[in-house]
């Protein structure tokens, strides 16, 4: 059934001549074959100059129109390629890991981006290293880390892992001592830091003969320059299938989500900084199987975790994860939920697709919801968000504090992206960036 669904939804033939165009490009060693050339270089330069003049005139007209008529200003032009950040850490600053070795940063809420990855970070991975979306970690506006994996690097023979660290927003990077590894496969490094000095590097030692694999956990207390091995094979093996994610609430209290399937899902918890781990089942006893996201902690005691089962469940704790309680969500399966702290959160429902007939649209809930009691109750937020997203789906909302938040939206074919910002808790929004 699911195979059929995927084939029906995605099935499209290879365009006629596509491989021949690729072959021609490779033979000519050009990025794109020239199909037809009707503009001479001189005419091309003239056309570019005319286009530039027209763009300037259009901008000038927009600005004058704004001053005269008092209309909402046009969507500003953008710089840098990134539209959707990996993580916003403040109302203005955010980071993006665009490819496995490209780190970008914004200081104007995503309108413009600057590439800040370590200059010496190689743009390659050995074949047998699993790429990981957690191989970079962004703590705040200044501190970030990114993992390098390689072979026979400076100071390391064989396979190694090094961590690059910055404390000035990516202007300068320091490289930590390399960690040499024995296993040739499946390392999938995952990083997590709780402050500028204390962090953890988790890898899964899954060589070809050891199907179960085992966790390897390193810790640092100097910001990533030096790492010490603190745990191997100590996680309950029945719960270990490679890491999905790891997080720490304090230097002692941490959580690990095993990468197992949905059967008998658990969280692994440590209360000694990662030396020993035990399995915990926060979900209610009668809950069907599902998968956990990584917990989020706002203090040593207050945290929450989402559990994906037949519907999305929210579980909260106020005693450092000793006990967990379910909380309600405003809709069964919201498109996105974001908490700025332990009490203030937002959720957005499913939007109506105006391009489809009413008869095939599911029951829609276009509302933006807000809670200020940790999910005990939710209320609709009067918002103008739909003014900007009429032909788009809102994919996610992300609030960095009680007033400032962001939303990302895309059109049905997934071609156009919107990045929006609010500074009044979601009541009014403005487009920061579009493609």
């Amino acid at each position, binding site marked *: 059934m699911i195979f059929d669904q995927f084939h029906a939804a*995605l099935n499209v033939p290879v365009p006629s001549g596509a491989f021949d165009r690729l072959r021609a490009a490779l033979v000519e060693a050009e*990025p794109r074959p020239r199909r037809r050339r009707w503009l001479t270089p001189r005419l091309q330069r003239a056309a570019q100059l005319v286009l530039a003049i027209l763009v300037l005139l259009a901008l000038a007209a927009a600005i004058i129109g704004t001053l005269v008529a008092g209309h909402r200003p046009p969507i500003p032009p953008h710089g840098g390629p990134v539209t959707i950040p990996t993580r916003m850490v403040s109302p203005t600053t955010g980071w993006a890991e665009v490819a496995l070795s490209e780190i970008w940063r914004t200081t104007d809420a995503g309108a413009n981006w600057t590439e800040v990855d370590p200059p010496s970070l190689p743009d390659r991975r050995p074949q047998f290293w699993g790429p990981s979306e957690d191989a970079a970690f962004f703590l705040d506006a200044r501190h970030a880390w990114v993992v390098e994996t390689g072979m026979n690097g400076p100071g390391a023979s064989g396979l190694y892992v090094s961590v690059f660290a910055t404390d000035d927003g990516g202007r300068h990077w320091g490289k930590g001592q390399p960690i040499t590894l024995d296993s040739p496969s499946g390392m999938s490094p995952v990083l997590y830091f709780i402050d500028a000095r204390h962090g953890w590097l988790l890898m899964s030692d899954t060589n070809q003969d050891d199907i179960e694999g085992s966790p390897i956990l390193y810790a640092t207390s100097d910001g990533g320059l030096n790492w010490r091995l603190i745990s191997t094979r100590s996680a309950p093996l029945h719960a270990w299938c490679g890491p999905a994610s790891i997080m720490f609430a304090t230097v002692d209290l941490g959580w690990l989500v095993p*990468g197992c399937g949905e059967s008998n899902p658990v969280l692994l918890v440590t209360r000694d900084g990662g030396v020993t781990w035990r399995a915990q089942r926060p979900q209610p006893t009668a809950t069907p199987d599902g*998968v956990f996201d990584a917990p989020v902690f706002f203090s040593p005691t207050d945290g929450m975790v989402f559990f994906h089962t037949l519907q999305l469940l929210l579980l909260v704790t106020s005693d450092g994860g000793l006990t967990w309680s379910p909380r309600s969500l405003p809709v069964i399966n919201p498109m996105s939920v974001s908490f700025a702290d332990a009490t203030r959160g937002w959720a957005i429902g499913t939007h109506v697709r105006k391009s489809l007939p009413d008869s095939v649209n599911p029951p829609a809930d276009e509302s933006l919801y807000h809670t200020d009691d940790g999910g005990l109750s939710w209320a609709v937020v009067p918002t103008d968000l739909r003014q900007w997203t009429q032909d788009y789906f809102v994919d996610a909302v992300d609030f960095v504090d009680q007033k400032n938040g962001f939303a990302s939206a895309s059109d049905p074919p*997934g071609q156009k992206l919107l990045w929006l910002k609010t500074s009044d808790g979601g009541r009014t929004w403005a487009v920061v960036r579009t493609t």
Partner: protein
Amino acid sequence: MGQMLFDRSESELIGLARKGDGAAFAELIRPHYAAAFRMAYGMLHDSQEAEDAVQDAAFTAWKKLGNLHAESPMRPWFLAILANRCRYVSKTGSRSVVSAEIREVQAPAIDIAAGLDLRRALGRLGHDERLVLVLRYYLDMPYEEIAGTLGVTPKAARTRVERAVHRLRPILQVREALI
């Protein structure tokens, strides 16, 4: 006359490609092109963007052909590079100005909605989750080959697919209940 390229072994083609022979590298890619295009389309949902992504990935792979280890299969290595390229495209919104092929306009409204629902659901997932689903259920890849593309064990590949399916399930169940 020299031996035709299609008569040469893969190792011979790799040798030629490393010396700068673009035609030889194209022959290395040829048997994998259809799968690569389908994977890129599954990730980007646009034919033009998929073709561009495959082309860009091919040039990247050609430059990095030295990283392909001896005796290692070509396809998972190339698809891993393509996956990285697709991730870059989807993250930056670097889209072609050419309009997407809306092939589903001739299909019944329910099929249009179902297809859009699945694509929307895929869009909610992270890149890695979306990738394993496309590899498994659109390219019909066995777990062993998915593992080679991701650089993990077959068991880890299977569990990643299971987790990603579970993320999709609530949305697909809502859709099925309404039809």
